[in-house]
């Protein structure tokens, strides 16, 4: 039997909907809401990290090569990174289907 990620009926709920497993919110992939995804043009990127600083989800991280990328499991496609990017290196591209 596989363990359920969260309760499905009232009988399964902890009193007060309390959750005793730390970090369980990370299992909720808010990236499924996204209509547009950020795409970096590293030729324009100056590696300043403004996208990383402004991301309200905290899902943009620096890669080993010093450029940046978004974790699409959590990126909601808000576009703040693209709006803030000094060198206009980020474009918001429509998600297909």
């Amino acid at each position, binding site marked *: 039997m596989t363990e359920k990620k*969260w*309760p*499905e*009926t*009232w*009988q399964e*709920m902890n*009193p*007060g*909907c*309390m*959750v*005793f497993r*730390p970090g*369980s*919110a990370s299992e909720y992939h808010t990236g499924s809401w996204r209509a547009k995804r950020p795409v970096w043009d590293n030729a324009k990127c100056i590696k300043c990290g403004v996208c990383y600083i402004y991301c309200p989800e905290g899902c943009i991280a620096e890669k080993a090569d010093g450029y940046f990328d978004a974790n699409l499991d959590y990126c909601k496609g808000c576009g703040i990174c693209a709006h803030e990017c000094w060198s206009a290196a980020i474009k918001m591209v429509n998600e297909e289907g």
Partner: protein
Amino acid sequence: MGKRVGMEVAIASAEAAALCRFDVAAVYPITPQSHVAEHLSDIVNDGRVDASFMTVESEHSAMSAAIGASATGSRVVTATSSQGLLYMSEVLPIASAMRLPIVMIIANRAVSGPINIWNDHSDIMLQRDTGWISFFAENGQEVVDMTIQAFKVGEDRRVMLPVNVNMDGFQLTHVVEPIIMPDQEEVDRFLPAYLPYATLHPDRPVSMGTLGMPDIYTESQKSKDEAIVHSIGVIREVWKEWEAQFGRKYEPIGSYRTEDADVALVTMGSMGETAEIAVDELRKQGVKAGLLKIKLWRPFPFDDLKKAVQGIRVLAVTDRAVSFGGPGGPVF
């Protein structure tokens, strides 16, 4: 043994909370509750209870602070009235949804407008469906007893819900009544130290007040309703225990001269004692009158009421709040 004292009921309610050794009081003063707020503050200031008194800037903050304090595992008391209770409204269902056994003493007062500081039940009726257990006291003694009982009921692991104790503004709050004040040793015997189900502590991480998406939200409401519906069993148990220890009987529906009654009044709160006199007068005139007093408002004691009304032909239900455009008052 408890001592019979003459005490203003608002002061007595704060004294009752002190006997329960509360840890935190977060209160904002409002007429006619102010004496409760002031006296809780005095009790903490005088070092009579090892507690914090939080001087919050509003009732919304009072309830928010009470929720936060209760989530850390503190025994929490607050008090309010009328507009103050309405200002708390947004946070009241959160306290019950988080299953935090906060006790709130309410000095029932009319809601504006017109502006009116005197007593009716429109404040609590507007908060009726927030998932709090509601007691209605008839006199000062019941205010004291119910305040102590409220902690025991709310903190029971089978309940884990906030409880409000309703006392009529002025009719009770500002009246000096003879009250048997239990002593500390008696209350300690009745009310054990609060052992919370969970507390906000880094050693044992817990998320409280979580997000509930539509697929679980309705289930969460059912879970809360089950908790309050089934709390009546614990309330009965606690009241039996109280009766055994203190000799004063509590029932969800109190009855007065109803054995052979044809007609009966239904009251809630301080009106009960006045109504007893009216029943006595009617009996002298040959009317077979009786009286039913609702002491437990939520969860509503349907079975007790059905039993209590047996044989009575006419019920005269008194309501002290209007459900505008509705089918009658909330009690009716």
